[in-house]
C-alpha cells in the first residue's frame, strides 16, 4: 500500500518536496494536471521511509503520509 499519497490536482510543481526527500524517490510527472503543472509523484513506494519531510515543506498541502503499523504494541 502507498505510504505517500499526492493529491496531484493541488500540486503546483514547485519541486520543494523533491529537494528534501532523503531517499530521492520523488519525481515530477510527465503529464500536466488541470492547473497546467507537472505534479510530483512517487512510484517506488516501497523505498519511502514515511519521514514526511515532503509533506512538511509542501506549501499546498498536497501530500498525505502513512506508515505501517507495528505488529507489537510498544
Amino acid at each position, binding site marked *: 500500500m502507498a505510504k505517500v499519497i499526492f493529491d496531484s490536482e493541488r500540486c503546483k510543481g514547485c519541486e520543494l518536496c523533491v529537494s528534501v526527500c532523503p531517499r530521492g524517490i520523488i519525481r515530477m510527472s510527465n503529464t500536466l494536471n488541470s492547473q497546467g503543472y507537472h505534479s510530483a509523484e512517487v512510484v517506488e513506494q516501497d523505498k519511502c521511509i514515511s519521514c514526511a519531510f515532503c509533506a512538511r515543506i509542501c*506549501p499546498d*498541502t498536497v501530500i498525505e503520509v502513512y506508515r505501517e503499523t507495528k505488529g507489537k504494541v510498544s
Partner: protein
Amino acid sequence: MEQVFGRPKALSEKRLHYCPGCTHGIIHRLVAEAIDDLGIQDKTIGVAPVGCAVLAYDYFNLDFQQAAHGRAPAVATGIKRVLPDRFVFTYQGDGDLASIGMAEIVHAAARGEKITVIFINNAIYGMTGGQMAPTSLPGQKTTTSPYGRDINTVGYPIRVAEMLTTLDGPAYISRVSVHDPKHINKAKEAIRKAFEVQIQGLGFSLVEVLSTCPTNWGLSPREALKWLEENMIPYYPLGVFKSPEEVSKVGA
C-alpha cells in the same frame, strides 16, 4: 497503516492562490496545526491583512475579519477586548506590518494587547509587484531599487522582532524560518508557544517568520529557500528574543 501526516482541521480545502513554492502555504498550515494541537479552533478569530495573504480568511476553517492595510493589530485589539475569551491572531506580511502598519503594531505591542501576531517577512512587497519593503536587504534588487537598495538614500532594513523586544508590553517574541523541514518544525513550535502565551493570558506574542517570494525575487522556489538561508538569516538572526520566563523575572 497509520497516518503520519495530513491536512489539519483548521485549514480549509480551498486551493491556495499563492505562486508555486511560496512559503505562505507552509505557514498557513503551521498556524492551523498549532490551533488543532491546542484544540482552540472554535474559539479562535483571525485577522487578515492586505497583501498576498489578503484572502487568508478563505483558507482557514476559523472566524476571520479582514482589516484595512496595516491595521490588523488595531482590529485584533478591538475583537480581543470585546470578546476576551476568544483567541485572536493577526497574519501580516512585512509591507502590511512594517510599513503602513508600523504605528499599529508598535502600539499594540506597547499596550501589551493579549493577541498573537504572525508576521511574515520576505523582504519585499509581493502582491503589488516586488517593490522595496522596509525589510528589503541592503543591496537587494527590487522593482523600485533596480540597482540594489542604497542605504545612503533609503536607509536600513528594520528588524521588527528586535525592535519590539525593547518594549515592556510583549510577553513572547521570536524569529523563525521555514527554509527546511527542521526549521519548519521549530517554526511550528514557536507559533504554538505564541498561542499558549495568549491562552494563559500572559500578554502580547509575536512570531516573525522568514519567508520567500520566488516570483519577485526572480528565483526558482528551491533557489529562493537557499537565498533566504544565505542572505536573510545573517541579517535577521533566528531565536527567541523574549519569553514568559523573562517576563516573570522582570516582575519578580
